[in-house]
């Protein structure tokens, strides 16, 4: 892909004549164009290539997950969007303006239309919930009366109107992040960046915060960019996903497409977090390499796609006339698609196992033979 092309996540490739930067993806809220980011060597530490060859777009109004392991470059990427960091090469276009070219006052004005929430909330301990939310408005020069009205509105929006006068030390983690979200939305931004915003929260609170973000996206139309290392966050909230590894985008597209057909090992490892790639201990310990008399062959089948998981066992039993045992199964839904794996026990003879494998490959279910159990 050359410097002037950029693919919108999940969008069909535009025809070549539409590839000028302005028209490449007219509905892109954020567009990375040939981005690289290098941190120079400093005080004996070697330089770091944090990001390389980054070219993708985040559609307006979408919830896009950027997932990667620690050190993959996620934080650098998100800080390019709000101009906290400058790319070494390339441009970052946010809402049709090149934020990577802005400095000083112009940059600060542009930053008001980009909200950000943080893993550790980053609330001022010296200010109440209401005054924390008021901070960006004070900075933007709003009048006292306007601030008061807006803060009340925001506290209600995030569901903590009763915490108006509470200090952060008196709030729970979830409540603090709600204050953080209200503060990020205060100046009515068009983009909300979330930097591991739920990583410090328990699963139940995470769920509530993700639901809140979803409703904000739905009701306010704010584009949300989620930086995370947690597959569960992408699965619950994102419709688009960008998989980052070692500073490069290794896969990007609709969540359902990417995770029903993961190509890169990193993507597969994230998927494994959801559907699991290990057998139950009691089963794994019983598996042997040689078929015992009257034993079962153990086959693991990957299922992908809407409803796929429901029918495999029934169809196998019906079409091949075999008593197929379900030894273990893990199926989840990602972007409306079933994704998971079934571990089947195939009875008896060698030819039954071969017929099952042939049938699975005919219907394109990836399968592997794991061994035998008595």
């Amino acid at each position, binding site marked *: 892909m050359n410097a002037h092309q950029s693919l919108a996540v999940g969008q069909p490739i535009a025809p070549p004549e539409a590839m000028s930067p302005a028209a490449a993806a007219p509905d892109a809220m954020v567009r990375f164009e040939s981005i690289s980011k290098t941190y120079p060597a400093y005080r004996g530490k070697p330089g770091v290539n944090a990001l390389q060859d980054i070219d993708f777009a985040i559609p307006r109004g979408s919830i896009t997950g950027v997932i990667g392991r620690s050190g993959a470059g996620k934080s650098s990427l998100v800080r390019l969007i709000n101009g906290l960091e400058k790319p070494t090469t390339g441009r970052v276009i946010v809402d049709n303006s090149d934020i990577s070219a802005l400095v000083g006052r112009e940059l*600060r004005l542009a930053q008001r239309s980009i909200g950000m929430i943080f893993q550790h909330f980053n609330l*001022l301990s010296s200010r109440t919930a209401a005054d924390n939310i008021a901070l960006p408005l004070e900075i933007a020069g709003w009048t006292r009366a306007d601030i008061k009205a807006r803060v009340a509105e925001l506290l209600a929006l995030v569901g903590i109107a009763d915490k108006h006068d509470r200090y952060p030390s008196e709030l729970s983690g979830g409540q603090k992040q709600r204050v953080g979200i209200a503060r*990020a939305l205060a100046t009515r931004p068009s983009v909300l960046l979330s930097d591991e915003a739920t990583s410090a929260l328990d699963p139940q609170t995470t769920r509530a915060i993700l639901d809140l973000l979803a409703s904000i996206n739905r009701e306010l139309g704010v584009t949300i960019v989620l930086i995370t290392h947690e597959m569960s966050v992408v699965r619950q909230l994102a419709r688009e996903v960008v998989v980052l590894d070692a500073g490069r985008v290794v896969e990007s597209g609709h969540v359902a497409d990417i995770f029903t057909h993961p190509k890169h090992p990193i993507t597969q490892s994230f998927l494994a977090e959801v559907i699991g790639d290990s057998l139950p201990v009691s089963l794994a310990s019983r598996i042997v390499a040689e078929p015992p008399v009257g034993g079962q062959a153990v086959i693991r089948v990957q299922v992908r796609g809407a409803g796929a998981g429901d029918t495999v066992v029934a169809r196998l039993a019906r079409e091949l006339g075999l008593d197929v045992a379900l030894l273990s199964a893990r199926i989840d839904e990602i972007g409306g698609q079933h994704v998971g794996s079934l571990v089947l026990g195939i009875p008896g003879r060698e030819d039954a196992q071969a017929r099952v494998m042939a049938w699975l490959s005919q219907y394109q279910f990836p399968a592997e033979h794991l061994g035998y159990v008595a």
Partner: protein
Amino acid sequence: MSPELINLIIQATGESLYMVGIAALLGTVFGLPLGVFLATSRKGELFAAPLVNRVLGAIVNATRSTPFIILVVAIIPFTRFVAGTSIGSTAAIVPLTIASAPFIARLVEAAIREVDGGLIETASSFGASPLQIVLKVLIPEALPGLLLALTLAVVSLLGYSAMVGAVGGGGLGDLGIRYGYQRFMPEMMLAVVVVLIALVQLVQSAGDYLARRVNRRLRHR
């Protein structure tokens, strides 16, 4: 103790409070911005100016390593230039200020550096200017530490003020030396020490109380 002596103690206490109060005020006026700058001007920081930072740091260190009594004498021409005289309580405020400002600056620097760097990034992310970050984030968040720093500075100034008797500055320390030591009046010495102890206790308690009051990191239940 005779009423005259008690009057002397009251007068000396007034002089000490006057010198220390004005010097602490002026020391804060100069030391606070200097401390904030020292805390925010290293490489990659808000007001990055590493060279200026190093030069100011060296000046601060030089001032702080000069024994106070030598500083008092060494800057007599400057004191005369600023205060019009080098004798008396008002003149003594000049060396007290010059000694306290770098001290306060270092304490302020330490308090400001205690503020979570994530808050600076947060404020930057919603478009705060460096000055807004200092005024709306760094100073309010460091306020408990700043109040304790100021308390420490006032207590140190009380100690320093005992030495300005050498240039006719007056005050409690001067009274203790001239009456208690040179005129062999141990009860005078004792009285001066008791008053100083009471003052230090008072200042420290007030500082602790205020710092606790503004510290919202603790629960107030």
